């Protein structure tokens, strides 16, 4: 029974993962990816990892909402009213994907996998809490600080204000001498200014 549910969820995760790159609508692509994550979260719940499984659902719902907003903002024709195919090095990518899949599968099938299932009397959520705030506290706190740094970095990167002026004007540092050329390298012409090229359509 557990096996059937796990297999169904995994097949769903793989199918929705595949749909991400096959649908025309960007919103559908984002939420397909979310469904793939939810299915993996479901596997977690079935395989007695409830906290991680449910937290994956929560986190991915928020992340994919943000993802969908970015998709609609940056892609032309986000609703997929025109069929779209925006790919490069397609054959190479397919090859690499298939190769990775076959290679990993061969490794899985040829390896001798350990077998030591979780027992039902283990308090897995309790164990996780003790682990996070006990032996692995340093790792956990480092992750927290990393996330804080990410937040600061993301705000600075995405804001318009640069250190030397507006980002869309190409902020240039002041000269070394009064009124001199900007410090640092002199940029070549054609760094992208002339490609007013939105979404490559």
């Amino acid at each position: 029974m557990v096996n059937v549910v796990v297999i169904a969820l995994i097949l769903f995760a793989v199918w929705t993962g595949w749909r991400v790159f096959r649908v025309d609508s960007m919103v559908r692509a984002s939420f397909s990816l979310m469904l793939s994550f939810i299915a993996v979260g479901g596997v977690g719940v079935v395989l007695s990892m409830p906290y991680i499984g449910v937290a994956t659902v929560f986190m991915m719902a928020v992340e994919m909402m943000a993802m969908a907003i970015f998709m609609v903002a940056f892609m032309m024709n986000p609703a997929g009213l025109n069929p779209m195919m925006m790919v490069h090095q397609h054959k190479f990518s397919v090859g690499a994907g298939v190769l990775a899949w076959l290679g990993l599968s061969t490794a899985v099938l040829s390896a001798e996998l350990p077998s030591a299932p979780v027992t039902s009397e283990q308090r897995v959520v309790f164990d996780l809490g003790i682990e996070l705030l006990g032996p692995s506290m340093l790792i956990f706190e480092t992750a927290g600080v990393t996330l804080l740094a990410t937040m600061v970095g993301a705000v600075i990167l995405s804001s318009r204000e640069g250190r030397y002026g507006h980002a869309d004007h190409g902020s240039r540092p002041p000269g070394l001498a009064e009124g001199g050329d900007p410090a640092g390298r002199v940029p070549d012409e054609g760094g992208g200014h002339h490609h007013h090229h939105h979404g490559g359509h």
Partner: protein
Amino acid sequence: MIWLLLTVPVTLAVGVWLAATFDRLAPALWGARAGGPVAALRDGALLLRRQTVRTEAPDDLNRRLAPVVYLALAAIGLSVVPVTHAAPIESPVGIVIWGSCEALTIIAVFLHGWSPNAPFPLIGAYRYAAIALPVMLPSMFVLIAAALPAESLSVTAIVESQREVWNVVRQPLGLALFLLVGLTLTQRGPFDFADGADIAGGTSAEDSGAGRALWQLARLAMLTAFSAMAAALFLGGPLGPGLPGPVWLWLKTAAIMALTVLLGHGIARTTPGRMLTLLWIVALPVSFLHLAVSGGLALW
């Protein structure tokens, strides 16, 4: 076990009718005319007698899915609330499940506005996503704070921890912040950025007939689920003297529901940009402070 699961549809059905009736009674307290207990059924019947219009080139799959998902989320959220000493879905991570339902609600509302392929619903969908995503942060802090005295993420354990004193006494700020979350989840009053009058009804602007009725039903179902969860987290859920547990839970749920409906009808909605600022500048630090104080109290 089976009868516990059966309480979910029954509670939802009664809750939806009660919420719809409160919705028609509440204006009386704010000085307008009110409708009676049958008014909600009449409005529902009117919608069912009408055509469901299909817009031009809609995202049909998501148009059908959005209300169904919203309703399902309400049902799942309600089933982690303990009816007596156990919940229909008893999980060691009950409030995380509820949190996931909250986050997925944003997606259901977004899809509802996205799918008709029309400008005003889309603006409503975007506004709602922009407001509801930052609301998730206070929501998480409130849920964690409510779990602290219980030292557990299980809703049943949280209810059990309120045998001596209800969480609303220990954490009054928590209930206030949670009401804010509830107003957002159910798209009501000051947090109803999905359906403003300035965008002709927003995400619901293109809804008609049975489709509209289903969406409104799902909103009311979510209000029921939210009220039950608030009752469990802050008012001790099924705990109480004399009466059986489920009756206490239903009474407390109705009380929270009435309060939410009343607030929804009587508080003005500010502009989305300003609300966004208020959420990040005021609600987030306040909820953080709330978590810190609750943590201190739990240790003490």
